[in-house]
Structures are given as structure tokens and as C-alpha cells.
């Protein structure tokens, strides 16, 4: 049983570690190719939407977003005319087939009738208008992702027969891997080897047509442990598409990857191919580490580590650190805290028999407080935790997650066997840097 941390003075104030619902909604929309967005908001919200586009690494030349720049008079008098004009202009300039019209806090609170306007304007607009009300107060980024995914439901149709051995990959951009696209590629390639086709990716570089066809898949795989459960359950109830592999960690580390593949192989009746992937993958990891990283055994063994991550990686890292690398995950702080996540982590911790201190939906204050009291040797996290660790005197910080202070030009998966090595390579470099002397007394060499 995990030991859940309790923090004082955190009921009414929060030092947030993620954006609001608007960013989540925009994160889903940004995953769809050739659509445009009109944000009905003051101009600052455009930066939030831009962040969502960043998460998908949409080339800056391909972003089709416009903002109504709401000001005080608009708040007092209403700004439906302004929105109408912007929709018309964006329709003409962007010429996309679909346009999302997103209302943020200001528009949401003053009650702009975005739905009504879209309905009445639709006959005169080329693009299909999809209104989404996304006031930031409706939740955090993960909640917003559910709102965004929900807006896609009307697109999905059950036309034709279910395609055997086909899946939808539900992948809200909730992942903290800075080059998350590589994880999607890993899973797509791996499924292909198991004889499984990907019917729709929801949503990353996806087409509207692709999403429309999602109703014919035979299963859904959720590539997040932070967001998307509600949407997946709706697909299950509305289209009879079962959500599979959702109650185990994602393929993070050797054992989790093997476990994930074995279950996937079993579900899709491709056990032999799964075993083949496992065999070659494990041999690859062992071979690389034997030749290039033998020192990790004494280095990491019984190193007390804190994991500060999203649940997508945090729930898997616990086993990777404990069983694969013989570290001790003494503290696990997760960005989200759904019941599904809590249950999953509970099972993992019980199975491994570890006594980790745990907290969910942590904010910045809680992370720093927990790190200060945890007496750990190392922190696995992002730049945030790296700087906190430095301040707190924690010697080693592995800068794995977004926002990272590393330049990453080529996509690197964290899922799968190679993904584990990618993470370990970063850890190896950060470890070496941590123990380099910051202040060398050059004078003593000159004497």
C-alpha cells in the first residue's frame, strides 16, 4: 500500500504544473491536419493555443489560428459580431474543411452564444464549424483534453463492418516525452508486426476522414494514463469498441515493455510474433548495456530516487527503476490523479512490495516540499525538478521530461526497448555531469 503524502496549506492555492482546459482542447484540435481555429478570447489565450500546437510540433508555417482580441467593451457589450467577422475572414483566408470555434474564459462567462452563431452562420461558411466552449476554469489541461476529445465524437461514424485486428490509438498529447511522436511511431510499428492495423490515431497528424472511420476499429488502446479514459469509455459504450491494455503500465522499461507486448500478443492472437519481438528487444538492451554501460549496475543499485512525472511515464518508471535498474523509487509524484491511475499505481506498488511515498495531481509547492523531505539521491523529472533538486542539494537530477533543458533534434521514443535505452542514455550523461567538480582550483595545477 502506498503512503500518500498530505500537504498543509494547499486547499485554496495552487502552484500549477500544467495549463488550463483551453490548452487541453487546443491540444486535441492541433492533432488534426488541415483544420483551422478561431479563438474567441483576449489575445493572451492565443499563447496557450500556440503551446498546444507546439506539443504537436506543428510547423509554424502551417498553423491556422486566429483570435478575436476581446477587450473591455466586448466583455460589456458582447462580441458576436466580431466573432462572426473573424469566422468569415478565417474561412476565406485559411480555406480549411473544418474550423473549430473555441470560446475561452471571457467568452464562456459572458455567455457568447457560440453554438447558435455557428449554426446560423454555417450555410454561408465553407468550413464545417465546430463550436467548443473551453473556459480555462472548466479544469486543467487533462480535463480540457477530454472536452476536446468529446468534440470529436460527432465525427465518428459506425459505417461498415468492424475491421478485425484493427485499433484506434487514443493519444491526447499529455505525454511528457519531449519528442512524443517517437512513442506513437514505436507503438504503430510494433502493432504492425503483430498484424494489427491502426485505424485511427486520435489525434496526432490525423485527418478528419481518419477520425470518421474510428468507429470500425476492433479495439482502442489509450496511450496515456492521464487523459482520455472518459472518451475511450464513450467509444466503448457508443460503438462497442473495447478499451484494451488500459489497466497495466505503458511500455516503459524492460519488464513493462515485455508485459505490454505479451498481453497485446495474446489479445490479437499473435503470441509468437510478440515473443519474437520480446526476445530480440531484450537481447538488444542487454547487449548494449553490457558493452557500453556496465557501470550502471553499481551506480544505480539501491540509489533512492524520486519520480516526478505524468502518470503515463510515472506508473511505468516505478517498475523500471526498481526491477530493471535495482533503484529504490522512494517518492512518486504524479501530475494527474484519476481513479484509474491511483488503482494502477496501487497494484504496481503492491506487486513490487515497495514502500513509496506517493502524491497525485501535485503542484510546484508540493513537489518541492516532498523533495526537500524525501532524502533521495536522485530525481527523475523535468527541468522544473532539475532546478529544484539543485536548490535542495539533491545531487543528481535526470532531465528526462518536458520541459527539458536539453536540445533534442531527432525524435527519441521512451516506449519500448530502444526507448528504455534512450532514457538511460540521458540518465547516464546527467549522472556524469552531476559529479563533475564545479569549482576546480586551477591554481593548484599551476604550482
Amino acid at each position, binding site marked *: 500500500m502506498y503512503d500518500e503524502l498530505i500537504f498543509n*496549506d*494547499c486547499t*485554496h*492555492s*495552487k*502552484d*500549477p504544473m*500544467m*495549463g*488550463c*482546459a*483551453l490548452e487541453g482542447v487546443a491540444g486535441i484540435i492541433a492533432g488534426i491536419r488541415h483544420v483551422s481555429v478561431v479563438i474567441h478570447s*483576449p*489575445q*493572451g489565450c*492565443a*499563447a*496557450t*493555443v*500556440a*503551446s*498546444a500546437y*507546439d*506539443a504537436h510540433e506543428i*510547423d*509554424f*508555417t502551417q*498553423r491556422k*489560428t*486566429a*483570435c478575436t*482580441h476581446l*477587450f473591455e467593451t466586448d*466583455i460589456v457589450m458582447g462580441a458576436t459580431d466580431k466573432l462572426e467577422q*473573424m469566422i468569415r*475572414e478565417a474561412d476565406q*483566408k*485559411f480555406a480549411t474543411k473544418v474550423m473549430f470555434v473555441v470560446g475561452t*474564459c*471571457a467568452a464562456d*462567462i*459572458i455567455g457568447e452564444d457560440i453554438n447558435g452563431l455557428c449554426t446560423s452562420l454555417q450555410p454561408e461558411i465553407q468550413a464545417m464549424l465546430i463550436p467548443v466552449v473551453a*473556459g*480555462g*476554469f472548466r479544469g486543467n489541461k487533462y480535463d480540457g483534453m477530454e472536452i476536446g476529445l468529446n468534440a470529436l465524437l460527432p465525427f465518428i461514424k459506425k459505417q461498415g463492418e468492424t475491421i478485425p485486428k484493427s485499433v484506434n490509438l487514443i493519444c491526447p*498529447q499529455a505525454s511528457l516525452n*519531449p519528442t512524443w511522436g517517437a512513442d506513437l511511431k514505436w507503438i504503430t510499428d510494433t502493432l504492425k508486426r503483430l498484424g494489427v492495423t491502426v485505424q485511427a490515431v486520435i489525434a496526432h497528424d490525423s485527418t478528419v476522414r481518419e477520425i470518421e472511420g474510428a468507429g470500425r476499429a476492433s479495439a482502442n488502446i489509450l496511450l496515456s494514463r492521464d487523459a482520455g479514459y472518459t472518451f475511450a469509455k464513450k467509444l466503448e459504450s457508443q460503438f462497442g469498441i473495447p478499451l484494451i491494455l488500459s489497466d497495466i503500465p505503458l511500455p516503459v522499461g524492460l519488464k513493462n515493455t515485455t508485459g505490454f507486448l505479451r498481453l497485446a500478443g495474446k489479445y490479437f492472437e499473435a503470441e509468437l510474433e510478440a515473443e519474437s519481438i520480446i526476445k530480440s528487444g531484450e537481447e538488444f538492451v542487454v547487449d548494449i548495456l553490457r558493452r557500453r554501460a556496465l557501470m550502471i549496475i553499481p551506480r544505480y543499485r539501491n540509489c533512492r530516487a524520486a519520480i516526478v512525472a505524468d502518470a503515463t511515464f510515472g506508473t511505468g518508471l516505478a517498475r523500471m527503476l526498481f526491477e530493471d535498474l535495482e533503484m529504490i523509487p522512494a517518492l512518486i509524484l504524479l501530475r494527474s490523479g484519476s481513479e484509474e491511475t491511483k488503482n494502477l499505481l496501487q497494484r504496481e506498488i503492491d506487486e513490487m512490495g515497495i514502500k513509496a511515498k506517493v502524491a497525485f495531481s501535485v503542484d*510546484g*509547492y508540493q513537489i*518541492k516540499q516532498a523533495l526537500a523531505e524525501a532524502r533521495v539521491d536522485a530525481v527523475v523529472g523535468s*527541468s522544473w525538478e532539475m*532546478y529544484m533538486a539543485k*536548490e535542495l542539494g539533491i545531487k543528481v537530477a535526470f532531465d528526462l521530461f*518536458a*520541459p*527539458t*533543458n*536539453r*536540445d*533534442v533534434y531527432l525524435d527519441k521514443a521512451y516506449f519500448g526497448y530502444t526507448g528504455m535505452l534512450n532514457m538511460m542514455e540521458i540518465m547516464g550523461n546527467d549522472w556524469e555531469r552531476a559529479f563533475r567538480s564545479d569549482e576546480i582550483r586551477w591554481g593548484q595545477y599551476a604550482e
Partner: protein
Amino acid sequence: MPGISQDSIVFHGRLSELYILAKEGKIPTHLQGSHTRPCKFWTATKILSGIRNSVILAHGPSGCAFGVKQAYKLTNSRNSGAPYEPVVCTNADLKSVIYGGEKNLHEAILEVDRKYNPDVIVVATSCATGIIGDNVDAVSEKMKDEIHAEIMPIHCEGFAGDYRSGFDLVFEQIVDFMQPPTPSDRERLRHSVNIVGAKMGPERTEVDTDVKELVRLIEGIGAEVHAVIAGNCTLEQLKKAPSVAVNCALCLDLGYPIGKAMKEKHGTPLNSTILPYGIAATEKWLMGAAKYLGMEKEAKAFMQSEYEAVREEYEAAKSFLEGKTAIVEGHDAIKSLSIAHMLECDFGMRPVIYNFHPWSAQARETSIDYLLETGVDPEILITKGTLAFGKYESMKQTEDELLAYLGDVNPDETVYFGSSLSFPHIPLVDLNAILNRPRFGYRGALKVAECIKTALTYSFRPRSALTKQIVFPKNAGLASAASLTSKLSSDMPDCTVYAQHRRRGQCMMN
């Protein structure tokens, strides 16, 4: 006009003419729907991030607080080694929006005071709580005796003003923290100045920043800098700030509101000039300070020695540039005006500011007034791309219009002062690069001279096909809405600020 058709031109004339047209509403000054700047909340919190041991408590949902925390605080941690600093919010949800969030705010203030033990708590309103009308002033006032920190409400709802208004509001309001000068403080600080109009936090230790250069200049004449407001200043420094001999504006537009407010409230003199690019502006800045410090003699001697140190290269650049044309990229209005001032006054060039958005003619009134008063009235050229839907700083249309405008001008007669992300065939001087700092003062003037020399020496090299394709790919669509750092992302050397999921090396709006 070389190359460009009249159809592509929205305005070509003097800055003074554009200014009048903008004032009379005869040229559109609104930003296109695809153009966005940070809102009032962002700009207000950018200034507040420069007050040490203060906590911004955003009364609203989490997104606003998180955005500015990541952009400003995390960047400070990375660049300047600053400790982790929170930006806290009341996490307003649907219930708060319906029933009000004053009670929650009250409790949040108590929590923040206990958790962080800050010198200052600034309660910053957001769109959501601004619209529902939570009485933040009353709650803050009531809390004054219940907490250890000083508390100040700031009304910076994103819809409540343009980009600039957040800067002005905070600079005017933090004057309320200040104490009236006392004779003993005045005596103690009689050889001290404040640098006003700074933002965000500590300076990078490994970069020769412009602020550091200004500090060096002040110290060079034998005076001291009491505080850089608000660039990592303390509450204690703010309190005593009115007792200095003079406030020196770092940036005229941003320094003016606080300088004016301090002058009106406490009688602190204000030395405000345009950004001290080049020797003429630097000397004006320095003498403006020296006058109030009573150190004019020392300043003159120092200026002479500083000038001697750069004279040779500076004069060489001047002799080469005199009489030539300078095309100055106008995306960053204040910098472009300052650079134009330097090129005309120091180097005797004919500056033409390219694509100075008419929006700036309204937003940058202070700098424009100053420039015109000093007799500098540069040419302005605005092309259609600037007013088109799309991100004009980065779109192909404005680049094509630039190239058309330049046509086949002689590269020996014309120099482009702007971002390396443009690709004119004439020598290009990019003063924003991290290696080209400082840009202010005599060392800055030398740096500018060196940049010009390097640009001219290597002007025979065609621009890289690789870099050109990175910026302007084939079949590029419209770039829009804060999707790319302004090409003159000037606040941050190297133009890297953290944003969601952006990694090092990626850019962010300034």
C-alpha cells in the same frame, strides 16, 4: 522606389506623417486576427517577476499562472541560476465562477503567506475573476493585518488593455510600495541612480547584457546603481528607491510610467532618453544622469576615455557608412526607432524602417514623441503583407515584398539591420544575436561597428540555402498567432524562453 510595385505599399513617408495618420484614424492600427501579443496579464506579471521574494497570486484558473510561470520563472532558473519560484493561483473553477471566489481568495492569501513567507504578495486578477466582479481590492485590504507580507492587488485581466497596458499598470502601481525620501536616505543615495523599466528578473551571469553595460557606465563615473526596477530588485530597494539622485530609464517606453509616477509622488528626477544605442544616445543618457548626480565633470572625463577605447574601429565604420542607406527591420518598434536614431545621428546614414506596424504608432507614443522632438524623423515603409492575415514577421509575403523593394540595389550602398531570418542580398547586421551584446553604451557602439565590419567583410558569401529553406519552406502556409518568435525576440539573448513542451533552442514570443 526600387523594385516594389505601388500596389504593395500601404504607407511610405516619414514617421511623423504615419504618427498623424494613426492619431487621426486614417490608417488601420488594429492588429490582425492572426497577430497576437501577450495580454495585459502576461505583461503585468513579467514586470512582477522582477521583484525578488514576491509571490504572484493569480486569482483565476490555473492556465494563466502556469503560462507565465513557465515562460518567465523557469527561464530565469535556467538562464540566471535563479531558484525555483512559484506563480500561484486560486485555481478558480466553475463553482467559483458561479458563486464567486472571494472566500477562496481570502484563504489562498493566508496559505501563500504561510507557505512561502514572501515579502510581497501581488494578487493579479484574470479574465474570469475580473468578469464575475470579485472584489479583490476589498479582500486584499482586509488581509493586510492578517499576514506578514505586504499585499497589492493588480487589475490585469487579459481583456482590460493591450499588451503595453500591463507594463504601465505595474510600473505605476509598484510606486505604492515606495517610501517618501528622507534627508538621511537622500544623503546616503545622493550618488546613486535607479535603472527603471527593466523586467522579468536577474541578468544572465555569462552574457554581457545591456543592463550590465548601463551599470558599468554609471559606476564608471563614480556613482552607484541602487536598484534595477524591476530586474531582480528587493522590496527594501523599492522602498528606498525615491531617495536616489535620479531615475534613469532603461527603455523609454517602459521606464517613463514609473519615472513619471515617482517624480509626481516623490519628486525623484527622471532621465529618459531613447535606448542608448550608439554614442550620441549613450552620451545623452549618461549626461542626463550626471546632471542630477552633480557629476558632469566626471561623466565627461569618463566619456572621453570610453570613446578613446573604441574610436578607431568606430570611426572606421562611420567613414564607411556615412551617406549610405540603412533598411531597419521594424518588427520591434522601440528597437527599430533606437537603431534608426543611432544610424542617423552616429553614422550619418539614411535609415528606412521597414514594416513598422501602424499598431506601434499608437502603442509606442512615448518613444516616437521623443524621437521626433530630437529631430529624427526616419522614413517608414509599410507593405501590404504587414496588414495581411498571417504572421507578418515571418511570412513569405513580407519577405518577398522586402526583396522586391530592394530590387537590385547596390550591396555596397545599402545595409540591412534586422534579423538573420530575413534573406536580403545586401549586407545584414543582426544586433540581436547573443554574441553581439552589449548593444548599449560605448562597448555597444564598438560591438555595432564590429558587426557592421563583419557583415561587410563576408557579404560576398551567399546566404545558406539550408537556412533559407528552414525559414521559408516551399509551399509554406500562413504563419500566424504567436506561432513563431518575433524575429527580433529581443528580451532574451538567443531568444529562447520556455513554453509548453518547447525545448531548449526553441523560441517564444517576447
